[in-house]
């Protein structure tokens, strides 16, 4: 009886993931989790050493800021507006801050999201803890700015 209880307790612990390495959170909203947005590709993941495969020489600034991994997925809004969501997981919040504050254009506007964010006509960049999120749409439509903000909040809620 004693052994039976121990085995059962162990099984519960394993099933609950206790003692296992915590699985990274999935920051990508499922289709229709944010109204009108469909997740239109699989999630792709790049370790820091492979980031060049995705963004070529641009990877250097992320590596210098301590990027650990990058995940990305495509989205479509109402079947038309296409966007890409990149989530850079940095070593710490300072790394995410460094990237956010680098290379802003003069028409950047602050956006209340996460720890800090900026918004342009076709893109949103924000940080939350060690995560740096960049959402870019390929065109500008009358509804794109509002739609992008909704998607950004959907991602932020999952971080």
């Amino acid at each position, binding site marked *: 009886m004693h052994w039976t209880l121990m085995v059962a307790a162990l099984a519960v612990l394993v099933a609950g993931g206790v003692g296992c390495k915590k699985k990274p959170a999935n920051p990508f909203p499922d289709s229709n989790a944010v109204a009108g947005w469909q997740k239109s590709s699989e999630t792709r993941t790049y370790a820091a050493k492979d980031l*060049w495969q995705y963004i070529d020489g641009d990877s250097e600034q992320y590596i210098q800021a301590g990027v650990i991994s990058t995940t990305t997925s495509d989205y479509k809004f109402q079947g038309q507006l296409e966007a890409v969501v990149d989530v850079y997981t940095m070593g710490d919040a300072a790394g995410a801050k460094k990237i956010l504050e680098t290379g802003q254009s003069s028409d950047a506007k602050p956006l209340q999201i996460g720890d800090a964010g900026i918004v342009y006509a*076709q*893109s949103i960049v924000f940080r939350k803890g060690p995560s740096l999120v960049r959402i870019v749409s390929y065109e500008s439509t009358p509804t794109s700015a509002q739609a992008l903000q909704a998607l950004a909040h959907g991602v932020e809620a999952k971080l």
Partner: protein
Amino acid sequence: MNKMNNRRDFLKTAATGAVLLGSQSKLGLAAMLDQPGQHAAGASKVVVARDPQLHGSDGQLDEKRVQALLDRAIHSYTGIERPAEAWKHIVPAGKTIGLKVNGLGGKGISSHLALVLAICERLQQAGVKPGNIIVWDRNARDIEACGLTINTDPAKIRVFGSDVSGYEDQQSSFGSARIKLSKILTHECEMVIGVPILKDHSGAGVTFAMKNMYGVVDRPQDLHAGGCNPGVADLNCIQTVREKVRFTIGDAMSSVYNGGPGFRPEFLWHPNALIVGEDRVAIDHTAWQIIEKQRAEKGMPTLEAAGRPPRYITTAADATHQLGTNDPNRIHLLEV
């Protein structure tokens, strides 16, 4: 120099021209096709063809205008009005021609499909069989970013990446570059036309004709040190790259003047131009000036002041590399 009487004469002379003109022109096209007095002998011809109406007020590309812009660029470069005839002076008969596009920046800032289709159309009119045209880049993702669909059917225009062909087992080298070349370049193509897209580059300063060759090697990340200098110049000096990549039709219809090489819509602008020529150094020098002009208009610092001048352009022109000229006095710039 007078125009050639026919393609055979042209090719024969071109072969000689490559020797005579050395680094500046492999085909010797520019020098041979010039009208007398058009520019100083030995200068590298670069054509910048523009159409201010290429993008509408909504920012959408008017694809119907791209073919006409391409024709105007090639006409200006060759001096030959009929497109099919002009193209016969650019591509050798019966050869497999590769179009090395650039889709790394994703959908927003990749070589435009309309331009690729326009080039393919003219190549076929010049007698190149569809199956002898290969549109290629690193991998399926980059190709699809250009709006292209993978096709390996040899009866049609072939479109695939180095992820399909693989890379050579043996390394090629020049200077700092020790790389394995794509088998599309080494095995499939007999001549390559570069179809890069003009972008600012966070490391190299500018990416265009020569930097586009990073997409033909297995480990481009190994060539990024020092602002890609001397990596870009060394890579372009590798014999196969130097000899096969003989013409550039640079896509400057859209560009990013900062934040590249990825798509940063806040820095997107539409130069509405094609930049055409043989001398890859002269083309990159010209493209760099276009980016600098836009940065100045936007109140941004020069690339030098930003700490990332494209030094590889100077290196590519030096005595070790001799890939072309970056001397404005030796670049015959034709803006049409």
